[in-house]
């Protein structure tokens, strides 16, 4: 057993649901007890989804515990097939169902006889993988299912597109700024004169998946989901892939260079040098910004970085190599990808932290006292407590990290957004610091903000105590209204009773 109240990566089934619900017309059925369908709330709340989340639960209750699911799961699958006509139903085990050890595969076999839809069982072990690993695995599973399906009926004949083309793999729902990133990735490939063959899983149709091999190569923007699929396609169809995250000027350059090399191996000579130069100098403002004197003040400032492997590694590189900031330590909670992460950042900072325990991170931040933090929502709150500014760069996130305005982290526009994020984090810190130095904000309590100066109304001790329980931002208003009410009714002493009476009678 482990004592914990916060986790960086969610349970496995969340990963599976994120993949399933990203595809078009795919329905997930969770084998789960009542209340485990919290995923729907997150989709509906965080992404403000206008549609019903295509996830339902086949409820595990006492009867299931006693007698097994029997026909229940099968009925739920066939029912959903009739109601929604999905292309694919993904039966999703949860931690509860995985210890019941029912033969879910058997249910899938039997249900698929009756359904129009394809039915598969998500192959993830709850006690061994987390949300991110499960999403990677489920995506691979769905892709290989559909490629094998075509292979079985008519041998898949792969015809490459005439012009260079790419599949973008791993853009999914509830991903950190994924939709904004996708817009910038599309622009990048357009500029590079590379066609986009397919984008998966976001809004993709499973029936088009067999066309994936028609692309010249695959592009995996995030390490957390998509690598397994890219490796599968590489093995089956000898498709090369690029997995450099185009986040920050240096990474974008590296990614484009690799694409250039890869195209040249496929006998397509391209030279992107002038494009990179133009974008770096004039489209992205980040390089010039780093050069401008404002940013001189950031030299030698200290920061720490923590997040998923993709974003934490890229952010560390940007801070050190592109902004000249001293990163004290950098870390990730993606323990399974730690070798890659160490390799990426070991040259850039003196210490690498691999942990999924937020307490260790909190202690580390308190001990090293950086000028700014770049982390997840958890680090933001640690920063609040320690009075250190924080820029959020990675999941897990809150609703404010699903902004309406265009805020990519990838591509050339992403570099601008990141530069703003970094600069604002530090200047806020500077302002605070200067204010402290010169006597702080004007925090004189507004004591006259009350009607009781005439002294004709007094508060009983109990009532005053009750008043302190009212949240600060409305307390003044409640106090004044109650006093107004007391004056109007010629009460000279405000007791609890008068307070309640005031609340009932005043329509405000």
């Amino acid at each position, binding site marked *: *057993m*482990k*004592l*914990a*109240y*916060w*986790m960086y990566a*969610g*349970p496995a*089934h*969340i990963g599976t649901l994120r993949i399933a619900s990203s595809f078009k017309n795919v329905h997930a059925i969770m084998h*789960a*007890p*009542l*209340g*485990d*369908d*919290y995923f*729907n*709330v997150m989709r*509906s*709340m965080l992404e*403000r*989804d*206008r*549609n*019903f*989340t295509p996830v*339902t*639960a086949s*409820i*595990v*209750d*006492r009867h299931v*515990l006693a007698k097994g699911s029997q026909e229940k799961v099968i009925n*739920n699958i066939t029912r959903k097939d009739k*109601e*929604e006509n999905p292309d694919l139903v993904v039966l999703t085990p*949860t*931690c*509860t169902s995985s*210890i*019941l050890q029912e033969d879910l595969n058997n249910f899938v076999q039997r249900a698929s006889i009756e359904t129009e839809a394809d039915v598969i069982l998500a192959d993830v072990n*709850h*006690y*061994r993988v*987390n949300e991110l690993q499960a999403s990677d695995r489920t995506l691979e599973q769905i892709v290989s299912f559909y490629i094998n399906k075509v292979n079985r009926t008519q041998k898949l004949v792969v015809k490459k597109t005439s012009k260079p083309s790419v599949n973008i793999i791993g853009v999914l729902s509830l991903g950190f700024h994924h939709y904004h990133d996708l817009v910038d990735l599309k622009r990048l490939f357009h500029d590079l004169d590379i066609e986009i063959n397919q984008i998966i899983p976001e809004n993709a149709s499973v029936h088009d998946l067999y066309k994936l091999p028609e692309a010249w190569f695959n592009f995996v923007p995030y390490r957390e989901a998509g690598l397994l699929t890219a490796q599968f396609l590489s093995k089956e169809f000898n498709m090369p892939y690029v997995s450099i995250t185009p986040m920050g000027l240096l990474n974008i350059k590296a990614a484009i260079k690799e694409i250039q090399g890869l195209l040249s191996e496929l006998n397509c000579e391209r030279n992107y040098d002038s494009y990179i130069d133009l974008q770096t100098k004039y489209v992205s403002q980040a390089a010039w910004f780093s050069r401008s004197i404002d940013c001189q003040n950031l030299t030698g400032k200290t920061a720490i970085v923590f997040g998923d492997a993709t974003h934490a590694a890229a952010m560390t590189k940007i801070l050190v190599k592109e902004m000249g900031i001293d990163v004290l330590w950098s870390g990730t909670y993606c323990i399974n990808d730690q070798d890659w992460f160490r390799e990426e950042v070991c040259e850039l900072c003196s210490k690498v932290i691999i942990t999924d325990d937020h307490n260790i991170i909190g202690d580390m931040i308190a001990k090293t006292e950086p000028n700014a933090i770049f982390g997840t929502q*958890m680090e933001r*709150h640690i920063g*609040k407590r320690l009075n250190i500014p924080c820029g959020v760069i990675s999941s897990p996130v*809150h609703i404010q990290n699903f902004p309406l305005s265009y805020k990519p982290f990838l591509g050339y526009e992403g570099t601008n957004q990141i530069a703003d994020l970094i600069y604002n984090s530090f200047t806020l810190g500077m302002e605070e610091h200067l204010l402290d130095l010169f006597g702080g904000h004007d925090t004189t309590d507004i004591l006259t903000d009350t009607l009781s100066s005439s002294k004709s109304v007094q508060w009983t001790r109990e009532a005053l105590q*009750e008043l302190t*329980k009212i949240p600060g931002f409305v307390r003044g208003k409640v106090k004044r209204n109650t006093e107004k009410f007391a004056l109007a009714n010629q009460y000279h002493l405000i007791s*609890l*009773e008068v307070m*309640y009476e005031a*609340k*009932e*009678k005043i*329509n405000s």
Partner: protein
Amino acid sequence: MQASTNNNITFECETGNYHTFCPISCVSWLYQKIEDSFFLVIGTKTCGYFLQNAMGVMIFAEPRYAMAELEEGDISAQLNDYEELKRLCLQIKKDRQPGVIFWIGTCTTEIIKMDLEGIAPKLEADIQIPIIVARANGLDYAFTQGEDTVLAAMAHRCPNQEYKNLNISKPENHKLIIFGSLPDTVVKQLSHELFKQNISIKGWLPAQRYSELPTIEAGDYVIGVNPFLSRTATTLMRRKKAKLISAPFPIGPDGTKAWIDKICHVFNIVPKGLSTRENDIWKNLEEYISLIRGKSVFFMGDNLLEISLARFLIRCGMIVYEIGIPYMDKRYQKAEIELLTQTCHKMGVKIPKIVEKPDNYNQLDRIRDLKPDLVITGMAHANPLEARGINTKWSVEFTFAPIHGFTNAKDILELITRPLRRNNGLKNISDNIYITHNSKH
């Protein structure tokens, strides 16, 4: 679908495929209510993920709750449950020094049959902190029923009789204990209402602190403030030999009056000025009521407050199409159902059907047909319904906002009318349909 009738009310039961919160969510309000408590939820990452996300910002305020996250070794019994729990509880004792530790059993502890009730007394003796076990799992219960399991377990710990020498001249003319967790302010307000009728309260279950749990003796009277406390009521009756006062719940001025009336009746007191008080409150509510009179509402059902809220809204002049509810205890809610029936007769409307264990998919079908003015529902359906031009109110807010007593009737209507008031302001932008063209429903 099974149906049965009772006093012209139709009860139906659907498939139970509906969205609600897991009952372990009760720790979020109970740890705040019971100040010296610590809640240890013994479950998996799934439970932790739910709490972490459902509790939002509360999670960062160093809450007095934690997960005992089960690992593969715990599931396959390679690790000793007693030793593992002891290790964690000692750490909690060291870090937080709580007055009581609650163990919240989950689906997983049920399935692997972890003997929490058996381990707790031994460990309690070992580490010298009371340990209370409540099985608030999604296999058996929905959302607010979690509190019911916790209070039922706490009821066992209420002392049977006071130490006579400690009981110094404290006149107890009424042996009344109220059960149900409410914010401190609401507790004071309700106590005050009863005080005005010359009724003193012996205690509340739960109290502010574990050490202040009320004494409950055989023959004491108990009354609930919330409709989801049927196990607690049963425990108090069967194990503590207390007498349950069956009354409607003090939600809305009508409910509050009926609740106080019933208590007065039991203690042979003629209530003073109660009708005037109720009427005054109704008068103050008129501004809100004028917004909802004649409008229709549909409860999808997820927190068991539905019957009481529907009854209040019908009295406000609304038309209720359907009352979805996770679980319906017809005995514990008897008086509330009777008041609902009376209210319908009084207002001249049809008694709505009560749908137990609803099926959300079927409900959405009915909502599409009925086009109610307001749907009270969980967050999973709220945004998609809004995009289809249907006003919604998030049901969970009713469990966190103060809604009990005369004083807070306004708060209920504040919540109910919010979407209607908001939409009046938005008319100028466009019609209210925001779905994309390829969405099926």
